[in-house]
């Protein structure tokens, strides 16, 4: 099966973030970047689908400046067969602009399955996968936690609040992946070596117009310092009163 996985390079979620001096993005100095968490699950899902199907090709695609090649090589060291880098000076905030570039690349390549993470850790927009499906005119299943594909047909489980939903769909299709589908494998040393020899094609991204731009980014306001109301049982009534009237949580 020929599977494309569109992945994004995002900062490690355990980093400490600062707003950049431009106030429209984060300060990237000292941050560690990696394959986005959900995209990592998508890569794993693709590799497992092809391992189960006894062959095929897994192609990873990322859009952005040259540094996205790192995450493409990581995906290849996990086992993807080749990579496509859609070159752009920066990644637009408008998911539709990105989806246009991806669909332009994906449309005539005969992919049976196109995977995305359900959303990226940094923007949490969840737009690019669904928009790409729309532009390609393909069925789209979002937030999939279990995926089975074979011979022109796919089934997937979507975890809803308190319930699960099983869906089926014809291939080709676009599927966005939630965690739970499979733990991404660790690149082995052999995989890392092999990735250096796998093809990585770099070409200009045909981005659409970016109509959404970030005007301002700000951190949540700092929490006010805690207050000690009193000690022991005597303080409880006052605490309850404040929780009801001031904090309004009771």
């Amino acid at each position, binding site marked *: 099966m020929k599977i494309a996985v569109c992945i994004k390079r995002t900062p490690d979620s355990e980093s400490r973030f600062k707003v950049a001096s431009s106030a429209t993005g984060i300060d990237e100095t000292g941050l560690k970047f*990696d394959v986005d968490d959900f995209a990592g699950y998508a890569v794993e899902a693709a590799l497992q689908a092809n391992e189960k199907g006894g062959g095929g090709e897994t192609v990873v695609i990322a859009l952005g400046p040259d540094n996205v090649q*790192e995450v493409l*090589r*990581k995906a290849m*060291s996990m086992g993807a067969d080749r990579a496509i880098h859609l070159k752009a000076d920066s990644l637009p905030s408008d998911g539709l602009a990105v989806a246009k570039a991806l669909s332009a690349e994906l449309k005539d390549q005969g992919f049976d399955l196109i995977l995305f993470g359900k959303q990226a850790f940094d923007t949490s927009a969840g737009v690019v996968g669904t928009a790409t499906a729309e532009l390609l005119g393909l069925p789209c299943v979002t937030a999939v936690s279990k995926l089975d594909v074979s011979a022109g047909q796919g089934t997937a489980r979507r975890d809803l609040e308190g319930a699960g939903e099983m869906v089926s769909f014809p291939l080709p299709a676009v599927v966005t992946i939630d965690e739970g589908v499979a733990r991404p494998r*660790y*690149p*082995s*040393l*052999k*995989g*890392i*070596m092999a990735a*250096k020899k796998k093809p990585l094609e770099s070409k200009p991204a045909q981005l659409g117009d970016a109509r959404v731009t970030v005007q301002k980014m700000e951190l949540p306001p700092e929490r006010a310092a805690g207050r000690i109301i009193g000690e022991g049982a005597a303080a409880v009534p006052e605490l309850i009163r404040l929780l009801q009237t001031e904090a309004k949580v009771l």
Partner: protein
Amino acid sequence: MNEPHLANPETNPSFTKGLFCGEIREELVFPYPVLSAEERESLGLILGSFRSWAADTVDAAKHDHDGQFGPGVREGMAELGLMGLNIPEEYGGFGASAKVFNRVFGEIGATDGALAVYFGAHQSIGCKGITLFGTEAQKQKYLPRCASGELVAAFCLTEPGSGSDAQAMKATATPSADGTHYLLSGTKIWISNAGFAGLFTVFAKVPVEENGKKKNRVTAFIVDAKAPGVSLGKLEDKLGIKASDTRGVFFDNVKVPVEDRLGDVGHGFRIALEILNSGRLGLSAASARGTRRLMEEALRYAKQREQFGRPIGSFEMIQRKFATFAYETYALDSAWMLTADMVDRGGVDFSLETAACKIHGSELAFKAASEAMQVAGGIGYSKEFPYERGLRDARINLIFEGTNEILRALVALMGLQQPGERLRAMGKAFRNPLHSLGVIGGFLAGKAKKTVSTPEFKLVHPEFAGEAAQVAELVKDLGAAVERVLMKHGKDVIDKQFLQERMANASIDIYLSTAVLSRVTAALEHAPDSANTAWEVECARSFISTAYRRARRNIRGLTRHRDERLKWLAERALDSGELLPASPTD
């Protein structure tokens, strides 16, 4: 016979040997090494894989408690490919540079000391001999299986009667009458990985006849752990690194095919030294990373633990500890990385530098574990927290892969070789002056030159000109003091270990200071305005001023000391079996 060395002391250039001659061989230590972009990316992936895997699989406290690795740990190391990290690519390994290998070693060591010993005993020393000295056939036969983890390797040098004195070994390998194999017999002890091993690198003496005299020549062999006649002793119950499988290994007339002899007959000792020379660098990288990890644990505690209404980290006695280990570990990191680059560059004699890193690193990590425990107070002493395990695990590093004592003697005596040869050549020359005018003239010229031009650093960043001048002054004074020691004691210096220890310590501090100068220069040149560089500058200044004072004291102690008194006390204790005179309560 020493003439070639004398005529061309740069044949095998060594930075530290230069220090003993009062020289700064700056080209060997500048510019500070950097990882290529490709290496940096691979290293990031390897560390990322190891960390994710270890977080799921490696429970160091449980390994310590159980005295064995948990399920999937050794298999996981193999599946990740780590067992072949420094085995060349053409034999199925990753072919990591020494820089990358030792950084990964450090990460493993900071995660689980016993696992680092498993990893290091296999690759740093266990099968390293085959990589360095094996024939093509031996490499083809063994290395791919070592790289895959199918064959775990172990290094068998130490014997009951032969520890630091490796030449005293008793194990023998006698050639069979038909010349097809050797019969290996002997006892090896303290063998890390013994119980896991599929192959042993074993050192034994081969009887030979030279000029009609019978001699025994130390020779290296690759021995199949399953060969008849190989047996294992019981698992040692150790202070730390408990999951590391340490045992005696017994060889009773084990048939070793001649094609499994590693190197030539009589080359075993040199092979062992070469393996250990690069092997011990891993210990220093693990010491650096382990120090950082345990101290950071203590940092978190010091921020959160309050006494007298404030975090204990705000008290200066606690702050002094963090500051000390910040700059000492900075120096260690600077030095092991610089030394690893010497290994990668090739053509440089790095034997004294790896010894310096091992000595400084092992002692630093042990002290750090003790001080981290001190910061944590009572809970530091509890098995619920990692401090006491860190303390026990770190202790072995002062002992194995060459005790710190034998390594200090090595640094001093190897360091003394060149100045000693110059003086000896002088002595010989004066006995036969007509034939040796060139030698005398050359030596006197060198001496005259030395008194005029003092050693100096030319490549250090101007911001560190003051520190560079201080270090250069140490080099000059060490060179001069070494010469005085040699003039006074001649070859008796071999027994002057009080002096050797000081020389070694001074040269180690000078080497570390130099590594710091090199690294901070690179930081100031490449990223002068970064906050990280400013932090580095502070570490560098603090280390060099401390190391300067230590080295000063050690150099002064080469000519002014109270060693006779110390010797008297030691010998009195040794004679009587009592450490000190009766106490008033006895």
